[in-house]
């Protein structure tokens, strides 16, 4: 169905952006791919609840990737919106590309709000239920809670999804190419997420899973000799000795800065020349600072 924007005085571009943003938000929220993403994430969440209880830390570790299908869907919905910038009709639009792009980004923020709501509800439920198990005895807790910055990773990822969708949708001539590029970029970051958990690469990961496993150089004969504040992972199939499980709100916070930097960079690629320089510059700086600070936080 074609939706026509109400005619508004162009002297007040902010009102036009708001009006366009409302229309774009409605279209994106009703996009079938978003419904598919929500269903898949819901199924994944339900399967996670059925994990065996003897698999310590599984729910805590998997939680950040549960909204992965929603992130793919957000990118695709936003790409569809930005790709409409290539239709011949836009030549006759009464407002410029900057205003139209502002409306599209504003519409994308409705999807960010949806993700924020889901993440907040999940965090509150986990807190109300006393937390999750994490680590192996003697370095084990049954009350692990996500730090605020860990929860904020989800809205940051959603902003990145908006940026990626905007860049691919606006800059690639073929809509199919944009969708395939987004799928190919998101899929491994979600389902090969384990490959980015190592100490050396975790700051560069897109979806950051905590805890980060740190090798303990001097293995104690009795693991209870390790500092009582440490969470531990016992030797097993994937490791020969005890490992320290490092969780940190600061690490998650600087990772959020890195994600928002990448999002600004990609939005800069999508937007017209005016805001492009500012966004790309700010994005590169934020991403670089975010990565550097993460390396400084990891012991």
């Amino acid at each position, binding site marked *: 169905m074609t939706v026509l924007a109400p005619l508004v005085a162009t002297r007040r571009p902010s009102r036009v952006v708001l009006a366009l943003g409302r229309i774009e938000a409605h279209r994106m929220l009703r996009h079938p791919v978003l419904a598919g993403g929500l269903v898949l994430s819901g199924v994944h969440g339900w399967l996670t609840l059925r994990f065996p209880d003897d698999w310590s830390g599984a729910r805590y570790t998997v939680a950040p990737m549960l909204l992965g299908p929603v992130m793919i869907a957000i990118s695709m919905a936003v790409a569809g919106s930005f790709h409409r910038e290539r239709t011949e009709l836009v030549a006759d639009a009464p407002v410029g590309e900057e205003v139209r792009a502002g409306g599209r980004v504003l519409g994308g923020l409705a999807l960010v709000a949806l993700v924020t709501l889901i993440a907040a509800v999940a965090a509150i439920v986990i807190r109300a239920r006393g937390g999750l198990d994490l680590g192996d005895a003697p370095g084990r807790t049954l009350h692990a809670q996500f730090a605020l910055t860990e929860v904020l990773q989800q809205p940051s990822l959603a902003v990145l999804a908006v940026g990626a969708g905007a860049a691919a949708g606006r800059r690639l001539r073929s809509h199919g190419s944009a969708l395939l590029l987004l*799928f190919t970029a998101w899929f*491994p970051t979600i389902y*090969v997420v384990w490959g980015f958990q190592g100490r050396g690469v975790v700051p560069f990961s897109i979806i950051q899973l905590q805890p980060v496993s740190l090798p303990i150089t001097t293995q104690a004969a009795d693991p209870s000799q390790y500092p009582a504040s440490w969470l531990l992972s016992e030797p097993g199939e994937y490791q020969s000795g005890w490992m320290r499980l490092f969780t940190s709100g600061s690490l998650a916070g600087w990772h959020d800065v890195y994600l928002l930097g990448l999002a600004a960079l990609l939005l800069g690629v999508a937007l017209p020349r005016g805001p492009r320089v500012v966004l790309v510059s700010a994005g590169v700086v934020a991403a670089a600072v975010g990565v550097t600070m993460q390396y400084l936080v990891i012991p």
Partner: protein
Amino acid sequence: MTAAPALVLAGATWPAARAVTWAPVIVADGALVLVAALTRRAPEDGTMPALACATTAAACVFALHDRGEVLLAAVPTGPMRRRLHRLSIVVAVAAPAWLLMRAVMPGIRGVGVLPVLALMTAGVAAAVWAPSPAVGGAPALPLLWVTADSVVSGSLGPAGDVLGWWRAEPWIVLVSALLAILAGRHR
């Protein structure tokens, strides 16, 4: 005198090849090579083969989109014949690229041809049977199917098993999709 349909299609091969939207095939293959290089040290768990099959199949289904569909509706060569003609042109290019990638990329080495064929024919069947406003969504079928399979990972009982048929029992998917295409040959 009317030319035989096969001759008409043979003569139309070059113009059709020029009209095919090649960008999705090129972008999918390029992105796959890049991702495989970036994740070459990641533990192999079937994710890269799934990604490679899904994007290759979807790219081939994207190529079915015919910008001249309305214009060509009046010609005596039917839509199914034109659809298969375009598909054969795309597969003739995508198949060697797929085999080359399979040979050189460690992540997808050893992946069979049948799973990608199964996903592609399922996408084509969706394009044949989808109501006209939803035809554009047909290439999403391989992507959605593989994502759902990765989410479920065989842990949803019989439904999870069915989601894994594209890789575990590709013959079932392939034959079912071919039958669906055959049944919709006049669409």
